[in-house]
C-alpha cells in the first residue's frame, strides 16, 4: 500500500463560462419560483399603474418654462414649471437685491471652482486649495455678501435667502462640526476627568434637545439674556445653533470610529515615541474617520435637510422661499404649491444624492485592502 504522490502539477485553468442572456437572467432573478413570479407580476402591475400618471404630471402634461399662468390653470394641466422658472431667482437669492445678484453668483462660482478640485483626489495643490476653501473663501464670502466695505452696498443678512442661505448654513455646519466633533469625541475618551465630563455634558445636552428648540432658544431666548442694545445677527445665531447641534452628533459618530481602532494601533504609535496628538492625527483619526464615513455623510445629509427648520425662526432658506412664493396670486393655479415643493425636493435630492455617491466613491478609494 503506497500513498499518493502528484507527478505533474495541475495548471490554473480559466473558470467555466457561465451561460448568459436576458431570458436566463430573468428566469434566475425574476421567475425562479412561484412566489418570485407572483411578486414580479405584481411589481410590474404597480409600475404600470403608478408611472404613467406621474410622468404625465411631471413632464407629459406639464407647463414648461416659458408657459403662461392660464395654461397652468387649464384643467388637467400638470406641473407648472413656468411658475418655478419665473420665481427661480427668489428661490436662489431670497430678498437679495436684484442688481447685486452678481455677488452671490461670484460666491457660487468661487465655491464651485475651489470645491470641485478639492473633491478630486488627483488634482494637485491640495494644501493651498484647502487653505483657500476653508479659510479664504468664508472671509471673502462674508465681505462680498454682507457688503459695507470696498464700496459694496450693505446687504443685511435678513435679505439673504433661498438656496444661498441653505448652502451657507449647511456648509458652515458641515465643515465646522467635523473639527468640533473630533475634539469632543477625543475629549470624551480622555482620561482627564474635567475634560471628559465637560465633553460628555456638552454632547448629551445638545443631543437631548430637538434642533427646533435650539433654534428657538437661539433666536428668541438668547436676546433676552444679552444686555440691552447688543444684537447678534439672526443668521449667525442659527449658524452657531446648527453647528453646535451637529457637532454633538458628529462627536458620537467619530467616537464610534475611535472605538473600532484596535488598541495595538495606539500602542504601536506610543512605542515609537509619537506624542498624543501625533498618534491621534497620523494613526488613529485617519483610520477612525475612514471607518465612519457612512455615518458622517449620514450626518451631513440630515444636517442639509434640517437646515429647512431655520424657517421657523424667520430665515428664508430654500424651503421657506418656496413656501412663501405659494401665496403669489399672479401664479395662482391648482398645481402651484405642489410644483414648488417638487422643485424643492429635486434640489434637496440632487445635493444629498451627490453627497451619498461621493462618500461611496471615497470609501472605495480609501480602502487599502486591509480587513483586520
Amino acid at each position, binding site marked *: 500500500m503506497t500513498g499518493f504522490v502528484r507527478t505533474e502539477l495541475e495548471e490554473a485553468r480559466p473558470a467555466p463560462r457561465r451561460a448568459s442572456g436576458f431570458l436566463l437572467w430573468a428566469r434566475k432573478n425574476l421567475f425562479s419560483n412561484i412566489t418570485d413570479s407572483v411578486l414580479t407580476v405584481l411589481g410590474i402591475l404597480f409600475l404600470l399603474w403608478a408611472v404613467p400618471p406621474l410622468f404625465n404630471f411631471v413632464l407629459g402634461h406639464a407647463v414648461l418654462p416659458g408657459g403662461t399662468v392660464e395654461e397652468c390653470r387649464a384643467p388637467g394641466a400638470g406641473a407648472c414649471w413656468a411658475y418655478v422658472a419665473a420665481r427661480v431667482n427668489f428661490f436662489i437669492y431670497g430678498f437679495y437685491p436684484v442688481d447685486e445678484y452678481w455677488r452671490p453668483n461670484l460666491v457660487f462660482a468661487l465655491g464651485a471652482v475651489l470645491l470641485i478640485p478639492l473633491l478630486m483626489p488627483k488634482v494637485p495643490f491640495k494644501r493651498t486649495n484647502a487653505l483657500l476653501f476653508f479659510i479664504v473663501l468664508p472671509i471673502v464670502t462674508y465681505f462680498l455678501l454682507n457688503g459695507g466695505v470696498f464700496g459694496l452696498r450693505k446687504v443685511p443678512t435678513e435679505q439673504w435667502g433661498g438656496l444661498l442661505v441653505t448652502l451657507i448654513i449647511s456648509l458652515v455646519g458641515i465643515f465646522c462640526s467635523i473639527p468640533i466633533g473630533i475634539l469632543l469625541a477625543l475629549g470624551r475618551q480622555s482620561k482627564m476627568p474635567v475634560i471628559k465630563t465637560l465633553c460628555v455634558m456638552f454632547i448629551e445636552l445638545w443631543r437631548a434637545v430637538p434642533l427646533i428648540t435650539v433654534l428657538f432658544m437661539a433666536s428668541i431666548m438668547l436676546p433676552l439674556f444679552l444686555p440691552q442694545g447688543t444684537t447678534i445677527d439672526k443668521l449667525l445665531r442659527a449658524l452657531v445653533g446648527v453647528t453646535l447641534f451637529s457637532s454633538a452628533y458628529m462627536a458620537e459618530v467619530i467616537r464610534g470610529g475611535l472605538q473600532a481602532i484596535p488598541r*495595538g494601533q495606539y500602542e*504601536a504609535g506610543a512605542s515609537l515615541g509619537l*506624542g498624543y496628538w*501625533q498618534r491621534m492625527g*497620523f494613526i488613529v483619526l485617519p*483610520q477612525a474617520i475612514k471607518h465612519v464615513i457612512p455615518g458622517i455623510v449620514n450626518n451631513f445629509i440630515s444636517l442639509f435637510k434640517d437646515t429647512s427648520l431655520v424657517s421657523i425662526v424667520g430665515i428664508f432658506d430654500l424651503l421657506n422661499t418656496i413656501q412663501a412664493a405659494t401665496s403669489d396670486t399672479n401664479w395662482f393655479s391648482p398645481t402651484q404649491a405642489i410644483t414648488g415643493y417638487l422643485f424643492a425636493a429635486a434640489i434637496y435630492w440632487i445635493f444629498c444624492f451627490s453627497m451619498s455617491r461621493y462618500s461611496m466613491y471615497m470609501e472605495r478609494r480609501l480602502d*487599502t485592502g*486591509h480587513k483586520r
Partner: protein
Amino acid sequence: MSDISSTVVDRDIDRQRMTVSQTDVAVEIIGMHKWYGDFHVLRDINLKVMRGERIVIAGPSGSGKSTLIRCINRLEEHQQGQIIVNGTELTSDLKRVDEVRREVGMVFQHFNLFPHLTILQNLTLAPIWVRGIPKVQAEETAMMYLERVKIPEQAAKFPGQLSGGQQQRVAIARSLCMNPQIMLFDEPTSALDPEMVKEVLEVMISLAESGMTMLCVTHEMGFARQVANRVIFMDQGQIIEENEPDAFFSNPQHERTKLFLSQILH
C-alpha cells in the same frame, strides 16, 4: 545567515567582551510589582539587563511575561518598585516616558502596522515627526532597513497586501528606523504561519549579531538556545529561574521549570 555553530562561537566571544565592558546598564528593574485591579500580575521583579545583552523570557501563558516587557516602555504602568531604562526612571512624567519610548523599539505579536499607510510611510512616520529627520533622509534609512529585512520591493504596498512574515519583518524595520538602543519583542512569531517563523527569526538573529540589546518574549526555544545570553523563566507573575541557555535547558533547577520544559521540548 551564519549557521548555528558559528553563532555559538560569536556568542562566546560576545560574552567575553561583555564581561570586560559591563559598565553600561540598559534596563534595571528593582522590586517591581504590578496589579490589574486586585489581580497581582507581577510580583517582586528584579532584573538587570546590560547593554548588548539578549534576554529571552519564557513561561506559560498568563505568567506575566508580556506584561513585564510592556512595563519597560510603559505601555503598562507599574505600581511599586523602580524601572530604569537608559538611566531614566519611568514615572507618570509623560515627557520622560516619551524619552524612553524613543530609545526603545517594540515588536508586537500582531505586528500592529498602520494599515492606512504604505510600508515606506509606516517606516518614516516616527523618524520624521519624532526625530525631526528630513523626509528624504528618513526614506533612505527606511529603504536601508527594508533591504536588511529583505523586502525593499514591498515599500509602496500597504500592510494588508503582505504576508504575516513580511509584515512582522516590516514591523521590526519600523522599530529599527528610530535607531533604538533596546528592542523589545512580544511573542513576535506566535501569530505567524509555521512557514513564516523562520524568516522572522533570521532577522532577529542577525539583529542579535549586530549587538542590539534585546528582550524577547518567545516560545522559540531554538532561538533562545542560539542567541540568548540569559533565559528567564516566569510563572505566576514572578521570575522563577534565570540562567544561561545551556544550563537552563540541560539542567533546570525549579520543579515548575522542569515541568514547563518537559511540556514544550519533545
